[in-house]
C-alpha cells in the first residue's frame, strides 16, 4: 500500500550541501523529473536500507515566500502532499540565514529534524557551536553532520524517520506578544483548515500572502482589521514585521550558541574572490574560463567524440585507436593520384579555375595538396558546376565517376589496421543476411538508426559540457559569472548566466539549451531557452558558407553579419518578450548569494553530468526519433511515373515531402524564395541544419537574387532549430504550451526579419513592391514600439503554475 510508505521532505538553502546529502542518503535509487508544468527539477529517492522511506528533495530555497516558482512548488508540496517529516539541512558556517527557512518550516505542523552541515569546519575555524542549546531553542532534534564525508547523515535520516513515526510535530517559534495575539485571533477565524496547519495559514494571512487556497484567502478581509492594528503599532508592513521577528528570534537564539572568532579576517575564499571578481581582472578571467569551457567541450573533445559518433560509430566505421587510419589515407591518396587526378582532369580544373568557375580553385587546391578527402568534399560541392559551364568543356565527371564507381577497386578500409565497421554497416549486413525486405531495411537504417545516431551524436559533447557546468556551479564560480555579467544581460531580460548557453550555442544549440539549467530564475531560464538557438550553431555554418560562395562571391562580411543577426535577435527578443503577457507575471529580483568557493567532489560532478545527459536522451530522444521517421517516410513515399508508392531512390521533388514543399512554398513568396527546393531545404533543416545544404546544391541558386538568398539565410538561421534542439527545448521547458510558444515565436521572428530584409532591400534596389515595402516599414515601426513601450517589473508571481 502506498499509504504505508513514509515520505521525508529534504529542505534547505541553496549551497547548503543539500544535493550532496541527498545523494549520500539515496545512492543510486533516485528518480529525477520535473515538478508539473514548471522548469524546476524534481528529485526523489529511497533512503538507503529503508525500502519504505521516500526522500523528496525539495528545490534549494531561502524562504517559503510566494514569489519564486521554487518556493511555491516547495510550499505546495509541504502543505498539500502532507509529508510525514522534514529533514532540514542548514549550513553551519552560515547559521543565521539558514535558520530563517527553519523558522518557517517549524510552522507547518510537521515533525522536523535539523541537520547542521559542516559542523566540523566550524570547529576547525575556531568558531564554536552549541548544538544542544540550539536544539533546545528550536524545540526539535539537531544533529551534526558532514554531507561531504558522510558522517552523521544516517543518524540524521533515522532521527527524522523516528520523529515522523512518532508524529512529533514541530512547534512554531514565538514572536513578540502583540504579533502572537494577532496570530491567535486570525487562527480563530480559520474554521475549516486542519489543526496542524492553522499556525501556517494564520502567518500567511497576516503576511497578505497571495498564494493561499480559496477557502483561506476568503478570510483575508476579516483579518485585515487585525493586521492593520499591528502595522500601525509597529509602523511597518505586516510582511516586514514577520521577517524582522524571525531574524530577531534567530539572533537571540544564537546568542551563546554560536561564537564566531576572528571577524574581519580574510578566509581563503575571500582571497580567491578578491582576485576573481577584481575590478580589472574579473573580465579577463571570465573570458579565459569561458574560452577553456568552449575549447574543450565544443572544439576539441566535443568535436572529436561527436565526429567519431556521427561518422564512425553511426557512419561507415572507424579505426580502433586510430590504428590503420594513416595507412588507409595514404593508400587512398595514392589511388586518387594514379586514377582520379589524371593529367586531363588536372588540366580541365586548371582551365576552369582560370575561367573563374565557382569552386574550381578549391578542387585544384585539393589536387595540388594530394588530399583525397578535401577533393571529395570540393568535388561533391562544385563538380556539377564544372559539368554545366561552357557546355561541359571543363567537365571531369566521366573520369572521376569511373575511377570511383562501383566497379573501381578502391583500397578497402578493412585491409588496414583495426577497422571496426559502424552500427549502420553492421545492421545492414545483418538485415541482408536474414533477407529483410527493402522497405523494412530502409525504415530501420535511414529512419530509426539515423534518428538514434542523431541523438547520440550530441551526447558525448553534452557530457563534457555538463561536467564543466557542474564544476563551475559547485565550486561557486557560476554565481560570480552572474555577478560579473549581470549589468549587460539584465537589459535584455536575461541573466548573466545566459552567457554560457549562448556561447555553447555557437557550437551546438542542443547542449546550449540544456545549459540553461544553471539559471536559477524561471523567467530568465525560459527566456534563455527561447533565444539560445538564434546564434548560428556549427551546423548552420555550411548554410552561411554556401550562400556566401554562391551568391556573394565569398564576400567576407556575410559570415559576421550572420552572427550579428543572431545576437540582434537575442537582444531584441529579450527586450520584447519580457514585456509580453507570457513573461510579465514572473518577477526576477537579482538578490543573489555569492557562496564561498570550495572544491567540489568528483562523485557529485559525475552524478550531475550523468543525470542531465540521461534526461536529455530520455526526454528528447523520443521526439527526435519520431520526427526522423516522419521525414524518412515523407522523402521515400511519393510518385514514381505518376503512381504513388514507396521508392527509396525517389527524387525529393517527387516525394510527399516535395509535394508538401510545393504546397506551402507560397508562404515564402514575400521573402523572395517561393522555390520548391528552398522550401524543402527549409523543412529538411528541421532534421539537421546542414541538411539544407544537401538539398540545395550550388546550381539551384542561379535563379535567386542575392537579396532573396540573404533573406533565405536569415530565415533559416532564426527559424525553429533542428529536431534535436526542439527536443532539448521541450525537455527544459517541461510544458507543451511553452515549447510551442518558443517554436512559434522563433518562426515568426525569422519570417518578419526575412520579410523586412527582402522587401526593404528590394525597395532600395528599385525592384520593390510598394505594398510590401509599406508592410515592411510598418513591421519595423511595430518592433521599435515593442522595444520602447513602457514596462513595469512584476512584483508578484502571477501564474498558479500547479
Amino acid at each position: 500500500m502506498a499509504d504505508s510508505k513514509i515520505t521525508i521532505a529534504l529542505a534547505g538553502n541553496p549551497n547548503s550541501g543539500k544535493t550532496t546529502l541527498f545523494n549520500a542518503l539515496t545512492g543510486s535509487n533516485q528518480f529525477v523529473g520535473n515538478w508539473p508544468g514548471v522548469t524546476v527539477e524534481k528529485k526523489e529517492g529511497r533512503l538507503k536500507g529503508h525500502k519504505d522511506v521516500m526522500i523528496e528533495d525539495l528545490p534549494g530555497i531561502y524562504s517559503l515566500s510566494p514569489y519564486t516558482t521554487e518556493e511555491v512548488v516547495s510550499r505546495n508540496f509541504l502543505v498539500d502532499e502532507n509529508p510525514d517529516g522534514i529533514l532540514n539541512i542548514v549550513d553551519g558556517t552560515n547559521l543565521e540565514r539558514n535558520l530563517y527557512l527553519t523558522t518557517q518550516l517549524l510552522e507547518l505542523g510537521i515533525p522536523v529534524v535539523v541537520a547542521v552541515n559542516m559542523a566540523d569546519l566550524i570547529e576547525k575555524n575556531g568558531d564554536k557551536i552549541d548544538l544542544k542549546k540550539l536544539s533546545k531553542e528550536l524545540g526539535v532534534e539537531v544533529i551534526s553532520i558532514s554531507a561531504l564525508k558522510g558522517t552523521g547523515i544516517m543518524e540524521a535520516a533515522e532521527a527524522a524517520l523516528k520523529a515522523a513515526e512518532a508524529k512529533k510535530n514541530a512547534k512554531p517559534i514565538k514572536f513578540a506578544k502583540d504579533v502572537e495575539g494577532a496570530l491567535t485571533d486570525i487562527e480563530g477565524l480559520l474554521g475549516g483548515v486542519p489543526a496542524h496547519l492553522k499556525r501556517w495559514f494564520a502567518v500567511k494571512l497576516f503576511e497578505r500572502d497571495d498564494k493561499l487556497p480559496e477557502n483561506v484567502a476568503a478570510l483575508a478581509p476579516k483579518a485585515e482589521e487585525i493586521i492593520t492594528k499591528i502595522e500601525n503599532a509597529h509602523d511597518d508592513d505586516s510582511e516586514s514585521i514577520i521577517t524582522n521577528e524571525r531574524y530577531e528570534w534567530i539572533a537571540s537564539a544564537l546568542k551563546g550558541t554560536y561564537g564566531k572568532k576572528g571577524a574581519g579576517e580574510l578566509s581563503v575564499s575571500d582571497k580567491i574572490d578578491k582576485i576573481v571578481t577584481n575590478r580589472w581582472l574579473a573580465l579577463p578571467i571570465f573570458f579565459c574560463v569561458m574560452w577553456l569551457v568552449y575549447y574543450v567541450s565544443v572544439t576539441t573533445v566535443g568535436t572529436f567524440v561527436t565526429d567519431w559518433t556521427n561518422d564512425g560509430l553511426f557512419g561507415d566505421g572507424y579505426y580502433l585507436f586510430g590504428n590503420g587510419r594513416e595507412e588507409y589515407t595514404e593508400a587512398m591518396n595514392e589511388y586518387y593520384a594514379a586514377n582520379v587526378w589524371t593529367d586531363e582532369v588536372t588540366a580541365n580544373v586548371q582551365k576552369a579555375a582560370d575561367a573563374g568557375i565557382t569552386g574550381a580553385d578549391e578542387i585544384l587546391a585539393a589536387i595540388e595538396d594530394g588530399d583525397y578527402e578535401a577533393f571529395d568534399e570540393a568535388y561533391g560541392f562544385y563538380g556539377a558546376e564544372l559539368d554545366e559551364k561552357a557546355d561541359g568543356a571543363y567537365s571531369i565527371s566521366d573520369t572521376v565517376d569511373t575511377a570511383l564507381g562501383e566497379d573501381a577497386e578502391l583500397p578497402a578500409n578493412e585491409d588496414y589496421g583495426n577497422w571496426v565497421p559502424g552500427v549502420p554497416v553492421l545492421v545492414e549486413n545483418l538485415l541482408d543476411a536474414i533477407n529483410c525486405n527493402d522497405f523494412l531495411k530502409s525504415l530501420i537504417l535511414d529512419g530509426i538508426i539515423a534518428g538514434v545516431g542523431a541523438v547520440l551524436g550530441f551526447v558525448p559533447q553534452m557530457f563534457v559540457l555538463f561536467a564543466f557546468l557542474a564544476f563551475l556551479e559547485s565550486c561557486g564560480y557560476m554565481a560570480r559569472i552572474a555577478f560579473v555579467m549581470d549589468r549587460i544581460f539584465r537589459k535584455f531580460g536575461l541573466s548573466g548566466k545566459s552567457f554560457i548557453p549562448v556561447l555553447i550555442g555557437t557550437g551546438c544549440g542542443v547542449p546550449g539549451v540544456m545549459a540553461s539549467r544553471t539559471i536559477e530564475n524561471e523567467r530568465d531560464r525560459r527566456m534563455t531557452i527561447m533565444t539560445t538557438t538564434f546564434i548560428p550553431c556549427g551546423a548552420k555554418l555550411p548554410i552561411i558558407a554556401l550562400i556566401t560562395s554562391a551568391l556573394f562571391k565569398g564576400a567576407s562580411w556575410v559570415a559576421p553579419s550572420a552572427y550579428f543577426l543572431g545576437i540582434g535577435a537575442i537582444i531584441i527578443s529579450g527586450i520584447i518578450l519580457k514585456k509580453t503577457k507570457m513573461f510579465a507575471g514572473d518577477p526576477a529580483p537579482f538578490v543573489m548569494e555569492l557562496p564561498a568557493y570550495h572544491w567540489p567532489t568528483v562523485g557529485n560532478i559525475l552524478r550531475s553530468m550523468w543525470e542531465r545527459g540521461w534526461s536529455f536522451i530520455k526526454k528528447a530522444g523520443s521526439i527526435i526519433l519520431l520526427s526522423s521517421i516522419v521525414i524518412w517516410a515523407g522523402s521515400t513515399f511519393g510518385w514514381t511515373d505518376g503512381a504513388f508508392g514507396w521508392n527509396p531512390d525517389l527524387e525529393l521533388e517527387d516525394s510527399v515531402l516535395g509535394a508538401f514543399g510545393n504546397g506551402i512554398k507560397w508562404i515564402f513568396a514575400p521573402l523572395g524564395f517561393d522555390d520548391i527546393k528552398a522550401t524543402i531545404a527549409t523543412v529538411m533543416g528541421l532534421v539537421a541544419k546542414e541538411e539544407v545544404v544537401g538539398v540545395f546544391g550550388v546550381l539551384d541558386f542561379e535563379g535567386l537574387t542575392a537579396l532573396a538568398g540573404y533573406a533565405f539565410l536569415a530565415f533559416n538561421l532564426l527559424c525553429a532549430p533542428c529536431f534535436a534542439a526542439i527536443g532539448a527545448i521541450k525537455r527544459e521547458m517541461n510544458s507543451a504550451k511553452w515549447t510551442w510558444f518558443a517554436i512559434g515565436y522563433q518562426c515568426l521572428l525569422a519570417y518578419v526579419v526575412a520579410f523586412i530584409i527582402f522587401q526593404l532591400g528590394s525597395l532600395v534596389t528599385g525592384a520593390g513592391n510598394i505594398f510590401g515595402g509599406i508592410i515592411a516599414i510598418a513591421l519595423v515601426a511595430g518592433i521599435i514600439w515593442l522595444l520602447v513601450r513602457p514596462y513595469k517589473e512584476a512584483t508578484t508571481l502571477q501564474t498558479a503554475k500547479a
Partner: protein
Amino acid sequence: MKTLRDVAIGETAKVKRLHGEGAVKRRIMDMGITKGVEVYVRKVAPLGDPLELTVRGYELSLRKDDAQMVEVE
C-alpha cells in the same frame, strides 16, 4: 534619505527600514537585510553594478537600483 546605494565601498551601514513592495522587497528581507542589521559594502562588480555586500556573515549581491530600497542610518 540615505540608502544603501549611497554607502561607499568598504563602509558599513545600519539598516533603518525597507521601502518598496512585493517580490524584490521580500527577497531582500528573506536574505537577511532587515531592520537593524549591519551591512558591509564590500565591492562593486567590474561593470559598475551590482554591489557585493556582507550581511549576517555571508556574501550577497544586490543591484544598485534595488539597494535604493534599503534606507540606512
